[in-house]
């Protein structure tokens, strides 16, 4: 029987009561007394010299409080980058300054040039139109290979070129990999594009700056996945405000998908301007602004080659990727195509030799950074596409080829510097074969053909590295932050708990699943536990929510803090029952003395902690509050096998996804319903990338897909009912919960299944020359492939 509480149960999400009744407290719901409104004047050209910004007329417009330009930010830092990559020659990456407001040049459509603060938003917009801009347009560079070609226009005049870095991994393996290709019995090669995406969380970004002149305290409300990181980056690197004078609050956050990890210029601006104007200032992004100012995702151009021996064993893998950075380095941008991508190139396979080359390139486009999966979808897509292509070339079953090359022994040290702790790839493939009814595919294909449709089946595996990350390791890799997590557990006198966690939900249901863990540890009702997050003044420290890390890292910190609570509570219980500490057991919210019928309730102990009349004051302090910082020993490695079945209408090229099945191994599961939801959402986004979404610039750097009229988001009728299973569980060996993380899996695992399926459908119609179609697989592209 399913549990109704604790780990493994699926209680309904308590936060949904407020979300679904319109009572959420999002940043835009906050209105400070006396606030003024910010409107950013943004560049409508991709590249130009900013000769002058004349605000004289605009400043005299009704309602204008003040207009800011780059001149107001002299002495203020640039927006920092949080990760430094060392290139294959041992040199640091090229790192341009990223000013809060454009300085001297504009480098992408949407870059803020000036900011108008006025009594109303409309007045601010009116005044922005009266700003006299003198911009001399320069040729733009959008294509990455053109950007690194000799003589290209430079995005940053003070850099030597548009090449941010040329990264080789593992550089020492380069020659051995090349030799393995020389010796290969078969080489499969594939060139592909991982399409640029716009994250489009439902809630656009918002920033509200406040300043208290009497205390010199600054406060920022922002739509962030990690308010503490914003406090650190903005306070230390941009504005020079120490943490104790700066509070960052992110209340309910309406989706992020990575794009709300980063520190943005608008946040620094609002905090700065609130002090300069001595009043609260509020900026709410319009959807149009979001398209041209939220960090985009993906945008890789890759050539991948797989070498096999005569027995179809993978012997080497070699990739050559161009990764778009956009015009500036967003917070974690350099890490995405490198450490979050190269380290995953082994996938589920025991390929002994791997070499990954990544050239990160500046272009006159919006900065690109982590988006759901961040580097791992790009790795999985190219690997699972090239394996599928190899199977076709060799005339072998694509599942059998995968199985033959699966890693089967754990722990497994890959040739790309990570060690998988656990996994069972045959088990997830077995489960997939069952839930996807792969044996029934031929019959379903016949039915489709009889109906005038082509049917294709695509299967793939994935592995990801989640639960980021060991701080000492990422420090060696160039991270300018630690990646631990903290939690404070405060037990109140009457037994209820408040848990202050550095993880911050932007839709994941932490307020429901986190209490399940603690309730289980103590044996109390989940309703006695409250989760507090998203406020630097309430939570000691936090690295935030991304990389499927909240439960694995933040949850582990909670467990450690709760263990300290329990240890202290046992001492109190031992005192109350006049027993030895070591004899105290905690079960179902009762402390008992082993081998006796003596017991005290949880609430008696917590009350004693705060009313210490009968209390071991000579040994322990009153009160019951503990903090733990948890730094993971390794990444976690969720894995799985996915299958997609499509029908293609040969007359129009339209794809419909008929079946989608996912067998995931997330280790232990706390709330299966929430995990289902995470997988559903991830697959939806992966299908969006595969079939619909494409962020497109023209050659002048104008954003063609700048609204929902041209950027296709997946809708409910674009996706099928999913068949999702996570009964294959190989628990993580190095965190106390044995959990691996599930937030990104769906988005990582699904794009290759869709493309594999469509290629299969086309091949079934005799189009054997169609070995790849770039995403999004729009009807027009498929029709063109069918008629090539």
């Amino acid at each position: 029987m399913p549990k109704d509480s604790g780990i493994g149960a699926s209680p309904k999400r308590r936060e949904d009561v407020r979300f679904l009744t319109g009572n959420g407290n999002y940043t835009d719901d906050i209105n400070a007394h006396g606030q003024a409104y910010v409107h950013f004047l943004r560049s409508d050209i991709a590249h130009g010299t900013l000769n002058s910004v004349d605000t004289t007329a605009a400043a005299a417009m009704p309602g204008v409080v003040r207009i800011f330009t780059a001149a107001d930010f002299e002495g203020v830092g640039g927006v920092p980058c949080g990760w430094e990559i060392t290139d294959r020659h041992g040199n640091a990456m090229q790192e341009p300054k990223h000013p809060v407001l454009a300085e001297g040049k504009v480098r992408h459509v949407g870059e803020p040039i000036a900011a108008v603060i006025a009594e109303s938003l409309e007045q601010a917009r009116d005044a922005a139109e009266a700003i006299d801009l003198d911009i001399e347009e320069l040729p733009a560079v959008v294509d990455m290979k053109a950007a690194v070609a000799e003589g290209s226009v430079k995005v940053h005049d003070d850099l030597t070129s548009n090449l941010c870095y040329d990264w080789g991994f593992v550089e020492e393996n380069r020659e051995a990999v090349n030799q393995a290709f020389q010796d290969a019995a078969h080489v499969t090669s594939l060139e592909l594009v991982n399409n640029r995406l716009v994250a489009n969380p439902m809630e656009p970004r918002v920033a509200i700056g406040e300043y208290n002149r009497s205390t010199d305290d600054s406060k920022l409300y922002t739509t962030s996945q990690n308010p503490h990181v914003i406090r650190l980056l903005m306070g230390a690197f941009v504005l020079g405000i120490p943490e104790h004078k700066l509070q960052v609050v992110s209340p309910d956050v309406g989706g992020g998908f990575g794009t709300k990890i980063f520190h943005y210029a608008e946040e620094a601006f609002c905090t700065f301007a609130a002090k300069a104007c001595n009043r609260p200032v509020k900026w709410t992004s319009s959807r149009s602004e979001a398209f041209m100012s939220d960090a985009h995702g993906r945008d890789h151009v890759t050539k991948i080659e797989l070498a096999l021996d005569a027995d179809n064993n993978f012997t080497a893998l070699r990739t050559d990727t161009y990764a778009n950075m956009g015009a500036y380095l967003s917070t974690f941008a350099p890490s995405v195509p490198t450490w979050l991508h190269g380290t995953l190139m082994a996938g589920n396979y025991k390929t002994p030799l791997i070499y990954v080359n990544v050239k990160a390139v500046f272009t006159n486009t919006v900065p690109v950074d982590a988006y759901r999966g961040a580097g791992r979808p790009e790795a999985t897509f190219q690997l699972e596409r090239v394996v599928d292509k190899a199977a076709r070339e060799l005339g072998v079953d694509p599942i059998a080829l995968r199985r033959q090359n699966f890693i089967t022994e754990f722990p497994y040290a890959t040739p790309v510097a990570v060690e998988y702790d656990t996994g069972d790839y045959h088990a997830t493939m077995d489960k997939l074969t069952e839930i996807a009814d792969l044996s029934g595919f031929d019959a379903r294909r016949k039915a489709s053909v009889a109906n005038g449709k082509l049917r294709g089946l695509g299967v793939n595996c994935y592995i990801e590295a989640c639960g980021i990350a060991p701080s000492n390791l990422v420090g060696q890799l160039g991270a300018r932050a630690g990646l631990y997590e903290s939690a404070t557990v405060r037990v109140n006198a009457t037994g209820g708990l408040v848990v202050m966690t550095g993880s911050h939900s932007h839709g994941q249901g932490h307020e429901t699943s986190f209490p399940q863990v603690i309730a289980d540890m103590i044996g109390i009702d989940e309703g006695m536990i409250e989760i507090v997050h998203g406020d630097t003044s309430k939570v000691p420290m936090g690295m935030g929510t991304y990389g499927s890390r909240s439960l694995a890292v933040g949850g582990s910190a909670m467990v450690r803090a709760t263990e300290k609570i329990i240890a202290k509570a046992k001492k109190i219980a031992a005192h109350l029952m006049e027993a030895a500490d070591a004899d105290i057991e905690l079960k179902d919210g009762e402390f008992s003395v082993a081998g006796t019928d003596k017991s005290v309730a949880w609430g008696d102990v917590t009350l004693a902690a705060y009313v210490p009349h009968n209390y071991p004051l000579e040994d322990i302090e009153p009160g019951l509050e503990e903090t733990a910082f948890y730094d993971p020993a390794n990444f976690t490695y969720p894995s799985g096998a996915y299958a997609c079945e499509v029908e293609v209408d040969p007359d129009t090229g339209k794809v419909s996804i008929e079946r989608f099945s996912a067998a995931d191994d997330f280790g232990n599961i706390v709330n299966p319903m929430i995990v289902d939801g995470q997988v559903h959402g991830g697959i939806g986004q992966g299908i969006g990338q595969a079939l619909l979404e494409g962020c497109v610039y023209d050659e002048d750097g104008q954003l063609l897909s700048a609204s929902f009229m041209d950027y296709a988001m997946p809708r409910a009728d674009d996706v099928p009912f999913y068949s999702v299973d996570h009964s294959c569980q190989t628990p993580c060996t190095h965190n106390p919960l044995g959990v691996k993380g599930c937030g990104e899996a769906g988005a990582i695992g699904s794009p290759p299944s869709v493309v594999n399926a469509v290629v299969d459908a086309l091949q079934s119609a005799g189009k054997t020359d169609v070995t790849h179609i770039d995403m999004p697989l729009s009807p027009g592209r498929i029709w063109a492939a069918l008629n090539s």
Partner: protein
Amino acid sequence: MYNFEFEKPSTVADAVAALAGDEAQALGGGQTLIPTMKQRLASPSKLVSLSGIAEMQGVQREGASLTVGGAVSHADVAAQATDYPALAEMAGHIGDPAVRNRGTIGGSLANNDPSADYPAAALASAATVVTNAREIAADDYFQGMFDTALEDGEIITGVKFSVPQAANYQKFVQPASRFALVGVFVAKHADGVRVAVTGASEEGVFRWSEAEAALDADFSADAIAGLTLDPSDMIGDLHGTKEYRAHLVGVMTKRAVAAAA
């Protein structure tokens, strides 16, 4: 959005008078105009709402024609144009429920978006666009992308459709906007077949005369099997090439004929 004056007259005559001023703009359901104004891409000094004019409401059958008031919403056409099922079906698939409840037939035809559905229905139905001043045959009304025979201040008070013997509209949607990437309305009238194509051409809605001739001779999907359109006049954009749109016109025409026959 810039400031503007707002009037909501209750008669066509008052609306015409209200529109006489400079930069006054008629407002139907506002499904195009209001978003455009919000983006500050349009700045009429005055909006004259047509939604309070009783004489522009209603769907009426008169002999072989069906007259739809200029201010009738898509949802009302979908529900009330039961004498012309293909038209009702088309109206029921414009945009989403919010668009259908606010958007009007007059607004759509006055805007003449090159991807809108109503222009294809009106052209294929040999409709007559009735204004406060005159009646305009559909063949004369559509003059290119966002361009019509309407004069400044002229209001579409109604649209008279000739109810065909058989008709069907097939829309292949652009995946983002779900406007027609290509939409084909086929109508078989007593005096001939009319095939109107929206979404495809740089010139806006057009009649595919070769298909009409072939279908006049044989109203079956097979009749147009060999016909092709010149892609050079088609729209080519990130959602589909000119060649793809030209091809889709053939596919959608065949499907419409098959569904209507």
